[in-house]
C-alpha cells in the first residue's frame, strides 16, 4: 500500500520530466476534458494507448503500472456489467443463473463500454502525469494557477510529514504484530484503534516540534515561496502543440471519419 507512494521515477531525467509542470498540468487537464466528454470509445482508448506507450518507453516497471491500474480496471468491469444488465432497452442475449434471469441490453453495453473507456483513458493520463512530475513541482505549478497559499502550505506540510509519520506508524504496527496484536478479530480492532490513536498523538507532538523549528528559522505564520519563473519558450511551444494535437484528435475521432 505505502510502496505505491514511491516517486523515484519523477526524479529521473527524461524528455517528459524536463517539461515545465505548468505545461504538463494544462495538457493533462485538456486530455482529461477530452476523455470525459468523448461520445465514442476511440478517443479515450487512443489516449490510453498513448499514455501506456509513454509509460513503456520510460521503462516504468510493469508491477507499478498493474498496481495503479488494478482498481480502475475492476471498476471498469463492474461498470460494464451493471450498465449492460441494468440499463437499456434492446435485449442482446439472456441467460438464467441460479434461478435468476439476466438480460444484457445493447444500449447498456454501449454505455458501459464508453464509461469504461473514459475511466481507463482518464486514469492513464493522471498516471503518466504522476510519474513524470515530482510533488513539489506540482505544488509550484498550482501556485502559478493561483491556488490558495494556505491550502498549498498545508498540502506541503501534509505531503512531507506523511512520509515521516508513515515510518513511525509502520514500526508501531509491526511492534503490535510481533506481540500478536492482530491474531484475532476483536484484538485486531483494539490494536488498530490504538494504532490510530498513537498516530494522532505522534502527529500532534511532531506538530509542536516542527512549529518550534519553523519559528527558529523566522516563520511568521506564512510559508515563504520562491519566485515563479515565466513559462519558457520551449515549454510554451510544447504546450500549444499538445493542445492543438488534442483538439485535432478530438475533432477527428469524435466528429470526423464517419461524420
Amino acid at each position, binding site marked *: 500500500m505505502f*510502496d505505491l507512494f*514511491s516517486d*523515484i521515477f519523477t526524479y529521473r531525467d527524461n524528455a517528459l520530466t524536463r517539461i515545465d509542470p505548468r505545461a504538463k498540468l494544462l495538457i493533462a487537464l485538456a486530455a482529461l476534458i477530452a476523455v470525459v466528454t468523448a461520445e465514442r470509445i476511440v478517443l479515450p482508448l487512443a489516449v490510453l494507448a498513448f499514455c501506456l506507450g509513454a509509460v513503456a518507453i520510460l521503462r516504468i*516497471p510493469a*508491477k507499478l503500472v498493474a498496481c495503479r491500474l488494478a482498481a480502475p480496471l475492476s471498476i471498469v468491469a463492474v461498470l460494464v456489467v451493471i450498465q449492460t444488465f441494468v440499463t437499456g432497452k434492446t435485449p442482446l442475449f439472456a441467460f438464467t443463473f441460479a434461478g435468476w434471469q439476466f438480460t444484457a441490453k445493447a444500449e447498456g453495453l454501449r454505455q458501459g463500454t464508453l464509461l469504461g473507456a473514459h475511466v481507463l483513458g482518464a486514469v492513464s493520463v493522471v498516471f503518466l502525469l504522476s510519474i513524470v512530475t515530482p510533488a513539489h513541482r506540482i505544488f509550484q505549478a498550482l501556485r502559478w494557477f493561483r491556488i490558495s497559499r494556505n491550502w498549498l502550505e498545508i498540502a506541503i506540510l501534509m505531503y512531507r510529514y506523511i512520509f515521516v509519520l508513515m515510518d*513511525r506508524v509502520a*514500526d*508501531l504496527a*509491526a*511492534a*503490535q*504484530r*510481533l*506481540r*500478536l*496484536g*492482530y*491474531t*484475532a478479530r476483536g*484484538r485486531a480492532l483494539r490494536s488498530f484503534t*490504538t*494504532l490510530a490513536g*498513537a498516530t494522532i498523538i505522534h502527529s500532534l507532538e511532531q506538530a509542536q516540534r516542527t512549529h518550534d523549528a519553523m519559528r527558529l528559522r523566522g516563520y511568521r505564520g506564512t510559508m515563504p515561496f520562491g519566485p515563479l519563473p515565466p513559462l519558457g519558450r520551449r515549454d510554451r511551444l510544447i504546450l500549444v502543440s499538445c493542445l492543438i494535437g488534442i483538439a485535432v484528435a478530438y475533432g477527428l475521432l469524435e466528429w470526423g471519419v464517419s461524420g
Partner: protein
Amino acid sequence: MKAIDVTGVHFTYDDGTEALSGVDFHVSEGEFVAILGSNGSGKTTLIGLLVGLLKAKTGQIRIGEREIGSLSAEELYQRVGLVFQNPNDQLFAATVEEDVAFGPRNLNLPEAEVERRVTEALAAVAALPLRCRAIHHLSFGEQKRVSLAGVMAMRPSVLILDEPTAGLDPAGEAQMMQLLKKLNREEGLTVILATHSVDMLPLFANRIYVLDHGRVLQEGPSEEIFCHQEMIVRAKLRLPYVSRLMYEMKRHDGVPIDGLPLTIGEARVQLLELIPKELIIAELEEKKA
C-alpha cells in the same frame, strides 16, 4: 543446535533498491551475536526478515530448525522477539504493567499466568518498581527497558535488538549491555543485536557479522573481525578506540603488540608487559599487594 539459519537470502524493496544480496547468517542457541554495519547496510532489512515482517523472495530462513513460512504467528513470536530502536514505537499502553501484559494476553493465557509473566519480565530488566507507572512519565532509559520487558513476556528463545543502546547515556548504555549479557549467560537466551557502535561489542558479542551494502563482508569472533582494518573502513565503521590506539602504536610506532587488544583489560595486560618494572611506582605496587 541452530537457533537461526539464513541461507542465500536476497531482498529487494518495491522501489527497486536491493537491500540484501545473498546473505548467509547462522546463529546457534545461546550465542550472543552482533550484526555490525553502517546506516543503510541492510541490518534492518535482515532483522525484518528474521521476525517475518518482510518476506524473502529467494533464499531460506529457518527459525529453530523450522522454515519460517511454516510457523504460525503464535509459534514464531514465542520463538523470536524484536526490540525496536525507538521505545516510543513499541509502547502503546497507558501503564507499564498493561504494556508488558499485552503479549501474554494475546496468547490467551489465564490471568494468573499473565500476572506471573509480567512480574518475571519486569524483574528480568530491573524494572519492577516501574510496574504501576504511566509510560509517558518514564525516562528514555526506563522506556527502553520496559519495551524489552514487553518482548520478554512473550518468552522468546531468541531476542533481537535494533540499536539497543542508541540514545542512551553512558550509564544507561552500560546497564543495557550488562542486562543483555545477563539474559544471555544466565537465562540462556540467544541474543542478536544490530548496531553501528563498535566500542561495546568486543566485551559482549561471541561473534560479529559485518554487513555492507546488503552483503556479509566478514563473520567471526571480534578478535578476528577487528584485525581487518581495511575491511572495517570499507564498511564505514571504525575500530574501538582502545584498539585504534593499539593499532597505531603497533603499525606506526613499531611497538610489538600481539594481535590487537580490543578491550581496556586486554590492552592493559599487553602494555604492562612492555613497560619496565622499575618505572612502576612502588607505593601503588604495595597497595595492590
